[in-house]
């Protein structure tokens, strides 16, 4: 997975789970910022996103 915190715009209405599946990030160590708050995707998997919503992808990275 590419390193970096990245903001994306949702193209069509979908759930967080659908978004993660579409981005092939379902099993990746990642956090999401949605509406100014940070979540683990599985904690809000059924939350619906609307077209035009902004989601920030925040990969969790191990060092050493």
């Amino acid at each position: 997975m590419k390193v970096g915190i990245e903001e994306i715009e949702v193209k069509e209405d979908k759930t967080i789970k659908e978004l993660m599946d579409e981005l092939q990030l379902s099993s990746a160590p990642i956090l999401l910022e949605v509406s100014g708050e940070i979540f683990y995707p599985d904690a809000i998997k059924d939350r619906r996103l609307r077209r035009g919503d902004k989601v920030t992808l925040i990969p969790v990275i191990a060092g050493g």
Partner: protein
Amino acid sequence: MKVRRIEKVLVYDEGAVETLDIGEIAGYLREKLKKVQVKVRGNPFAFRLEKSPDYARKLASIKIRDASRKIAPEPEPLYGEVQYEKRRILGKTKAFGVVYDGFQLQRVFSELVAREERCLGFVHIFFTNRLFATWEESDKRYHARTSVYGVPSVISTTGLVEAPAKPREYYLVKQQYEMLGKDLLELKERLKASFIDYEDERLTEVVKGYAMQALFYYLVGDPFCKDKGCRLYNAHWQEELIFAQLGSGYELCGQHARILDSLHGK
């Protein structure tokens, strides 16, 4: 490159070793960030003691039992393991014989961050002596780690000793010492300049570099640098770690120094 704005840095002491001077590290971050507030919060469990049985169960369930087997989701921990974690949370022991799944540990720690502060802009750094490892799909085993960068970022003082490999000479001579029944402390004394050890007086200086990695994770989304002399170098060997943090003669490479300067309008 987009550089994020940091509002506040919050530093927590989750049972890090006593030789680690967290106040000095916070001072270092203040000096580097200038206008950004840096606060030391102490033990993050202290604000949630009523939930300590729940955290103890979660921590006991993310313990790695076999480095070649990925831990099952939500295994049921043993009573004694939960009791150990309770004592650890309450500060009644600082033992560090357990190895945790690093990403799961970071997730448990994230629950200790106040909800209103769980957003980009707040940099949360937990210092701990808990040892953690992350699963590598490529060789199907866990690897010990120094740090996990996320919300919060977690830096392990035990990981700094155990995760980066010691010099090859150490392992070769160690075998000879073991065969001859010689004292391994003598070997450690002989090679002490080439690796970081427990209660090492260089630890605070080394950890400043890892705190910088946590800062850059928030600033640009990448904690690391390819320059072996930059404090952001992701060292896998102790000799690399010592060179990047103590021996290169500079703190940050030109590119990362410029990013830091850009925060001060230089």
